């Protein structure tokens, strides 16, 4: 690690101010950022911890029924507190990493990082969530912009993520054997107005919606409806854990399993 300044403000306004400085960076649970710093792959001059801001922590249900998760809420808290209102989301959070990771890692950190193998992006895109920041509201469809790329501006803080609650949903994660991130993960959500299918882990572009599957499932929400559909291996990730073809194939298998489990 290189040396850096450290601040732990208690309001979003103070955090935004602290982040305005050159080379300042937000720190959520540190589960991604701290290992990066330890490897000296990043050199922020200042870390601004968001863990002291009570207003962006916790889970609540809005008047319209949406589940609202504060940007600095840990995975463990979501697993516990969203279980009644949005079981598929809670189950997803409960499968991230191990207890230590879940007790520190936050939804804001995960979505800001947008790792192509992360789980939360599938939930956000699959649910059609709204990412709320200190400055604006961003629809999930506009938010994810490729591997480790998002719509966030420099210094912008995710303060809340608003999840519309579907009639039925399920996240099926197939573990990468070493990291146990998603080798492929598929989030399926059925709403009155349609079905959303989000695939993570598979594409080099990060999380994406499988529109063909959505259309088929909108007509018939059954695993059988996906028979004959397949994703192209083009643009899929290929590495020591699986070929692009394998990932494309897994997405189909997991989508069917998610529909069956939803």
């Amino acid at each position, binding site marked *: 690690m290189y040396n850096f300044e450290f601040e732990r403000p208690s309001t979003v306004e103070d955090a935004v101010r602290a982040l305005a400085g050159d080379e300042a960076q937000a720190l959520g649970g540190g589960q991604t950022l701290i290992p990066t710093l330890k490897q*000296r792959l990043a050199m922020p001059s200042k870390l601004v911890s968001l863990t002291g801001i009570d207003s962006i922590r916790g889970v609540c249900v809005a008047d319209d029924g949406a589940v609202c998760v504060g940007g600095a809420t840990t995975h463990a808290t979501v697993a516990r507190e969203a279980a009644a209102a949005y079981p598929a989301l809670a189950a997803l959070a409960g499968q991230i990493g191990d207890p230590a990771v879940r007790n520190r890692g936050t939804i804001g950190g995960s979505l800001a990082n947008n790792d192509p193998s992360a789980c939360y992006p599938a939930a956000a895109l699959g649910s059609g969530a709204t990412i709320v920041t200190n400055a604006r509201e961003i629809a999930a469809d506009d938010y994810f912009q490729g591997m480790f790329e998002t719509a966030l501006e420099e210094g912008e803080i995710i303060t809340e993520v608003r999840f519309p609650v579907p009639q039925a949903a399920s996240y099926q994660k*197939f573990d990468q*054997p070493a990291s146990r991130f998603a080798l492929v993960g598929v989030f399926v959500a059925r709403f009155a107005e349609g079905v959303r299918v989000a695939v993570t882990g598979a594409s080099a572009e990060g999380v994406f919606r499988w529109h063909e599957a959505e259309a088929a499932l909108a007509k018939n929400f059954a695993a059988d409806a996906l028979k004959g559909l397949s994703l192209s291996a083009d643009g899929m990730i290929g*590495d*020591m*854990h*699986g070929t692009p073809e*394998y990932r494309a194939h897994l997405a189909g*298998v997991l989508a069917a399993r998610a529909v069956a489990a939803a």
Partner: protein
Amino acid sequence: MPKDGGIGASTKRREDIRFLTGTGNYTDDINIRGQAYVHFLRSDVAHGRIKGIDTAEAEKMPGVVRIFTGADFEGVGGIPCGWQVTDRHGAPMQEPAHPVLAQGKVRHVGDPIAAVVAESREQARDAAEAIEVDIEDLPAVIDMKAALEDDAPKVHDDLSSNLCFDWGFVEENREAVDKAIKEAHHVTTLELINQRMVANPMEPRVVVGDYKRANDESTLYTTSQNPHVIRLLMGAFVLGIPEHKLRVVAPDVGGGFGSKIFHYAEEAFCTFAARKLARPVKWTCTRSEAFMTDAHGRDHVTKIELALDKDGKFLAIRTDTHANMGAYLSTFAPSVPTWLHGTLMAGNYTTPLIYVNVKAVFTNTVPVDAYRGAGRPEATFQLERVIDKAAREMEIDPVELRRKNFVREFPYATPVAVEYDTGDYDATLDRLLEMIDRDGFAARRAEAAKRGKLRGLGINCYIEACGIAPSNLVGQLGARAGLYESATVRVNATGSISVFTGSHSHGQGHETSFAQVMSEMIGIPAEQIDIVHGDTANSPMGMGTYGSRSIAVGGSAMVRATEKIIGKARKIAAHLMEAAEGDIEFKDGQFTVAGTDKAVAWGDVCLAAYVPHNYPLEELEPGLEETAFYDPANFTYPAGAYAAEVEVDPETGKVTVCGFAAADDFGNVINPMIVEGQVHGGLAQGIGQALLEGCVYDESGQLISGSYMDYAMPRADDFPAFRVDHSCATPCTHNPLGVKGCGEAGAIGSPPAIVNAVVDALQGGGIDVTHIDMPLSPGRVWQAIQGAN
């Protein structure tokens, strides 16, 4: 009735109290006043010529004490290799120089180029980043077969090629084997890879070098499985420090699995730098660094042929193996694919003709050396896989095919130079079959099929040679050391005992099980006995812990020393009771005179030895301390039968281990609980190899499995509850405890069981797959299924 102490009792491990309460003393816990820290600048290319190293800017950075490069080690010895193999044509292996810091060239990612010693770890690292290294990239050789091509780049310019040796064993059998295979009724051929492994002990390596100018003494604290061996290798071959001026301490060590046997450059560096700077120098390896500097394991590419007659009798075995040595020869590297591998190719079977050919190859990768089982897992894997394939080809039940060929008469001289002293392979196989309900398998398979899963059962046997090893024999085979063990038993004046053993314990539980043996022999509570290890200043000599040798060799040395103690104590007791020595009996800590009620307690005899007022001083020295060196007469041969039951998800390729059973013959067992623990750990590593682990380089020599993000370590939830049994014991015939050793069995016997089971599952589902290379990751299994369809 289970015993509550002594031999055969499942005594709880005394060392666990300190480990579980955080009061262990590991090398990283050792901090010496005035200590400086070293950071190694390591090569990030696999092969390159060093054109220049500019340390000028770095020298000026805060906290820098001194920067060392290869030039500082001109005239200093290199890291030695402890075993010389002679090739098929009678020539010695090619043995390259291995400098402490790179000289001229870097040969693998992680090769140290420079070492920065600074006041703090971070300052050392900062300065290392400021060093400018000019490296001319050279093409790297990673693939072994490519490395042997005529125009391949050479890892070592001064060697004639990348071939370290071409070993034939038994060379005289070569033609007879060829002929037998040519003429056989059936020959089964299998090509397979035993993949490269990273040992990954929980504690990464740590080194502290210290130097006392006052008496010119160096002390090295290091994470080692064998401090005496390090003292010998480093003192004699690298730094030229005589033993009496060099102390090596390996305190609590958090696992080794082979990777901490070897003498590493960082040990020599810290000892050297401490002398140069006259201050302690410490290095703590990071996990990322461990991946590219700890010696790796396995990495064999093999073709095996098994010739059978029409009844399934094994007639001959021929193997052709390429074994990766990596960029340099690690301490015992040449012995692993040769003597620890070729000598086990007979397995549990009576195959009369065997020929093993091994080509050891240099590549631009981390050196490869012994890893739990070392050579024996490689032998077992290929043999037990090819037998399974043969059974399928010849439509013979795989269990029956093995039984047809079992060795049943002991001692049995194999055609590969070793003599099994004892064993009963039917007994362990029978026991295994009782444990796994083979008859019920068909129903379990049918039930799994209803859930869309393919269920498979894999069974195999294994044998290993442990209790390493008779010194005169290994000397003939190229070892540059003896493989005896020593122990000093120091009885204190009040009867308590300190045993100083050369067998280091780093997870094996010696402090408990060795004390149980002592308690049994002397008849005093184990609490009065301490087992001390890990310091060359204490134990007379030690060849260390590997090859499941501790209880068989180190324990035997302790028994021999204790026999001397009891012999002397008997004389003292005879004097105290005014009886003839021949009439003295010793039981449960009491000396008695046969046929009388005269008795004297152990403690009184000990006191008399140290307060010799009433003592036969003319005949006997005071004091009660004895040392013994024990050199084993033969290897020991643990053996057994293992079974895995798995389910394959044909949609995803994922393998789930539903059941695993191990029936082992370890001879006599000192502490059944510890033995079970050793087997569980071995199984975790063996099944981990079969399903999860694998070290992968890309073509340019970058290590792409360089962290736990990509190197899949097994976790508890990857396994079912293991069922293990060691009731079928045939005690070793040549050591005093009748023990064989249990440390490696699990890792040796389990990989073929898993792969056999997965192949069985696929075959059972009508998918014609005959082999999949490890690790059987979901992606690979799925790929194999696609290939078959």
